[in-house]
């Protein structure tokens, strides 16, 4: 590895000070599962690495007495996977945490890292988009909130400025009679990157779908919502036929490329299949 200095931040102010002083020459280190390989292969050669792993504010999961969820940026995939409250009320998010790498990687990899690396295939992005999460960002001029739907700007690009830091993700509780699910397709079951990922989140009221959110990964430069499919579901009783229709509309929202993991045609097919499956599971969960 190229040489660098490590700044071990004790709190958010330490991080912001380090970024203000060294912004463009610094990289933030949380779990390291994306950063360390890039430091080793020379893709990145920062002069400073700012270690966030001890900043308590970034390490907490808070269910806010059932009103919503606040997940610190340095919470690990494994913590999300195992947290009883997250599993019970935000199952799609827990499921995405369980799919990131092996257990050895999930104990390190963080939700903030998954989002800030901004890979089109980031597994935690679809459930957080479907849960309408907001990113809380700290910078020299204070904190700002950005809906996750506006957080990603391009492949591996976000709205974060070099002197800014992602603090946490906040989202409202889905409410009673809600259910969610995240599924992805990978050629092998473990240690793989999503060919397509789909999260669905439903809320029922008086026998009809009061709210539907569907988000897709690895089918566009950024993770995106399938809004036409959502609108087709809302205000109607959810039937097998309606789910099939929504799956078709989600397929039309995808703008995939062909690469070594799958052709664009295959990816569009997968969007339909995974949308149907996640909606079916989300519906069953909302009804139970």
């Amino acid at each position, binding site marked *: *590895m*190229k*040489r*660098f*200095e*490590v700044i*071990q931040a004790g709190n958010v102010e330490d991080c912001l000070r380090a970024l203000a002083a060294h912004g463009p020459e610094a990289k933030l*280190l949380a*779990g*390291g*599962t994306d950063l*360390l*390989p890039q*430091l*080793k292969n020379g893709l990145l050669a920062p002069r400073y*690495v700012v*270690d966030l*792993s001890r900043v308590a504010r970034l390490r907490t999961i808070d269910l806010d007495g059932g009103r919503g969820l606040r997940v610190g940026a340095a919470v690990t995939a*494994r913590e999300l996977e195992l947290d009883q409250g997250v599993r019970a009320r935000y199952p799609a998010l827990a499921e995405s945490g369980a799919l990131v*790498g*092996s*257990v*050895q*990687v999930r*104990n*390190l990899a963080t939700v903030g890292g998954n989002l800030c690396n901004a890979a089109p295939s980031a597994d935690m992005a679809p459930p957080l988009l479907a849960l309408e999460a907001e990113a809380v960002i700290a910078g020299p001029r204070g904190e700002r909130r950005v809906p996750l739907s506006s957080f990603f700007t391009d492949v591996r690009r976000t709205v974060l400025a070099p002197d800014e830091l992602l603090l946490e993700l906040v989202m409202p509780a889905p409410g009673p009679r809600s259910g969610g699910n995240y599924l992805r397709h990978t050629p092998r*079951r*473990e*240690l793989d990157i999503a060919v397509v990922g789909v999260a669905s989140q439903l809320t029922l009221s008086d026998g009809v779908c009061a709210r539907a959110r569907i988000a897709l990964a690895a089918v566009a430069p950024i993770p995106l919502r399938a809004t036409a499919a959502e609108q087709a579901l809302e205000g109607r009783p959810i039937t097998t036929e309606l789910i099939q229709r929504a799956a078709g509309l989600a397929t039309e929202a995808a703008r995939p490329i062909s690469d070594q993991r799958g052709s664009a045609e295959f990816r569009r097919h997968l969007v339909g299949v995974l949308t149907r499956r996640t909606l079916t599971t989300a519906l069953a969960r909302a009804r139970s």
Partner: protein
Amino acid sequence: MAKQALSFTVNDEAVEVLVQPWDTLLDALRERLGLTGPKEGCGTGDCGACTTHVDGKPVASCLMLAIQARGRTVRTIEGLGRLGALHPLQEAFVRHGVPQCGFCIPGVLMAAAALLAENPRPTPEEIRYGIAGNLCRCTGYTTMITAISEAATAAAR
């Protein structure tokens, strides 16, 4: 850029070593402390040969900077059992002749030990999932699963 002092607990012993900022935990264990049980296979967190427990959780020690381990409790294969007092998993691995070339075995044992600590009676499916992050180039997975299952059953008795 000066070396920094790293104080942490390794295999139940408080230790202090000097590390470079860019040293990984795996570098510190192997090069500074002579604990060569954890291996560098891929160096990118894919193979599991470097699996080490940090505060009881299995991590890829090749993906963690050494100084991130400051104040933490680390266990390597050298601290899992001792000659004459092997860990039940190690006993089972010997009985079933699991190690072939042996390179992956320290990592597999640390992953399996973490699995059994969390889930003392795993199903074969859960065992496969628990060691999914460990690659064995000799492909000796079947005996691994048998041995882990047997160690779990023996411990439950």
